[in-house]
């Protein structure tokens, strides 16, 4: 079966109209799966609680599978309660913390990239708890994914982060608010000013990381388009494309065309930092092999 395309959860705080427009456009695009919901900051309300089911229905009507994703850092009691409510209300949930795996109580779920699955024993254990799809940790080399694929639990799908600024770290502290010298509780949703994150540069002006609230991302966009054949050979079933504010529909289409056999490359990155693709080779994630076309 050909590799499917998933659109990951929207990592940034976009205004409501932009978010609704983004999901409406996805209906016509060749994506198979869409992850919805807030995964970074519990204060954000990109969409209202009642908006999400409507967006989900619109996408389902367009033939997409919809998955409700959840926070990667769950601290406050209110965050535990919200995550558990999402687990109860949605047919398929992506868990990024074991609190959610606990709340799911054995129902089928997607094991998100932040559950730290690095070996077959943990993958098997999660499968027994209902995991039917696994999103590999960003830093896991493709060779390891291939090894795990060879002994994968029955009916388990493998998904890989293939496009976007990578969510590398989480903190209790909001770095966007810190950059604006604002208290976290009085942040004024300043992260909303940065639809693709706030770029951080080294002191020699090299784009290095990007702040997205409590999340620290790579400044470079990980672009695995040139590696899709090796990725397919490693047993990956689904590629995750992480939403960005420019060129996204073109990116989706290009990935689809290349998976279907075309030889195409992505347009130049619209963000400072360019592209990177080191992780699949077991190299530093920031490394960039420099091939634009699939090999």
């Amino acid at each position, binding site marked *: 079966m050909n590799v499917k395309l998933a659109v990951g959860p929207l990592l940034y705080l976009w205004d409501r109209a932009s978010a609704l427009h983004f999901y409406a456009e996805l209906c016509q695009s060749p994506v198979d799966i869409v992850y919805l919901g807030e995964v970074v900051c519990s204060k954000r309300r990109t969409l209202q609680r009642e908006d999400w089911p409507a967006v989900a229905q619109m996408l389902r009507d367009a033939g997409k599978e919809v998955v409700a994703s959840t926070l990667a*850092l769950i*601290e406050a009691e209110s965050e535990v309660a919200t995550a558990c409510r999402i687990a109860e209300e949605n047919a398929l949930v992506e868990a990024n913390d074991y609190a959610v795996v606990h709340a799911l109580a054995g129902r089928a779920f997607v094991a998100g990239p932040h559950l730290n699955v690095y070996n077959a024993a943990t993958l098997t254990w999660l499968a027994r708890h209902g995991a039917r799809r696994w999103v590999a*940790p960003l*830093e896991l080399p493709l060779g390891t994914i291939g090894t795990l694929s060879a002994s994968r639990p029955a009916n388990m799908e493998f998904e890989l982060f293939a496009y976007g600024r990578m969510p590398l770290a989480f903190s209790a*502290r909001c770095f966007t608010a810190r*950059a604006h010298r604002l208290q976290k509780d009085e942040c004024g949703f300043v992260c909303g000013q940065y639809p693709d994150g706030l770029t951080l540069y080294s002191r020699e002006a090299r784009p290095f990381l990007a*702040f997205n609230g409590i999340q620290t991302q790579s400044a470079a966009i990980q672009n695995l388009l040139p590696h899709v054949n090796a990725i397919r050979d490693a047993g990956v079933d689904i590629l995750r494309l992480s939403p960005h504010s420019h060129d996204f529909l073109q990116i989706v289409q290009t990935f689809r065309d290349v998976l279907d056999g075309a030889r195409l490359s992505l347009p130049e990155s619209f963000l400072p930092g360019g592209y990177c693709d*080191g*992780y699949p080779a077991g190299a530093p994630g920031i490394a960039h092999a420099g091939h634009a076309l699939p090999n």
Partner: protein
Amino acid sequence: MPALRAAIDHGADAVYIGFRGESNARNFPGLNFSREEASLGIAYAHARGARVFVALNVYPRPATWASVMATIDQAASLRADALILADPGLMRYAADRHPDLRLHLSVQGSATNWRALEFYRREFGIRRAVLPRVLSCTQVTRLIERTSVEIEVFGFGSLCVMVEGRCALSSYVTGQSPNTHGVCSPAHAVRWEETPAGRESRLNGVLIDRFFPTEAAGYPTLCKGRFTVEGSTYHAIEEPASLNALDVLPALIQGGVKAIKVEGRQRSPAYVATVTRLLRRALDDCMHAGPRWSPPTEVTQGLDALAEGRTHTLGAYHRPWQ
């Protein structure tokens, strides 16, 4: 081994150690124990009423899985008092194979809420968890109210501003991270250079910081560097400072915290001796004096003298930035 003896001689109730190799999150040359040394260390501790916990807190990949399992068996055969683990697959193995061996959830397990802790307890019978350094004092107390897992928190040492176990910054730059290789900003990737602009520290080529001749130049842990954001150059992620929880020690004790963790690995025996002695005294005084205790100046000054950047912070416990 001298550091283990120093900790026990100066009042530590327990010491955590790692074995050589990539089985633990402090995988640095010359730092960890061979089987024979571990055996001697455990005997030394037990003879003095102290306990030894073995840290195996990486996430092994298929290539290292067998050796890490063997390390678990070794820790059990040496009669270590507990294993500190992060990987669920390893916890499954340890709980099945060595049901009498105490399991502690490592800080690398990223458990920041009671529901995750209770899941680990139900699954593997974990007895204690070390909390990531991202929770406030109030959150620690509330979490304790809802779980029967003993809670251990960091009292003194480095301030990890990211949730432990969910930080890939180091592998992004160097290819190695705490999760994959038990290292953060590893020394082999560090390069120092004297330049006309000042002394520069680089991590795999990425400029982490640049220091004036009069500035103290700290180790280039990548989240403690100075970077430029919208034209301002500052410690954009975190200032280099040590975590010191003494100011909130009464609240932590009253809240039900069972153990205070001090970073001792990667440290000299003299450092370990001083920090342990000061912390032991602070804990004993605080337990005796109750909620109104505050740390004596000489204890705080003694710890500051050993701290990164010679200064300390309460980190997330207090959250001045909240």
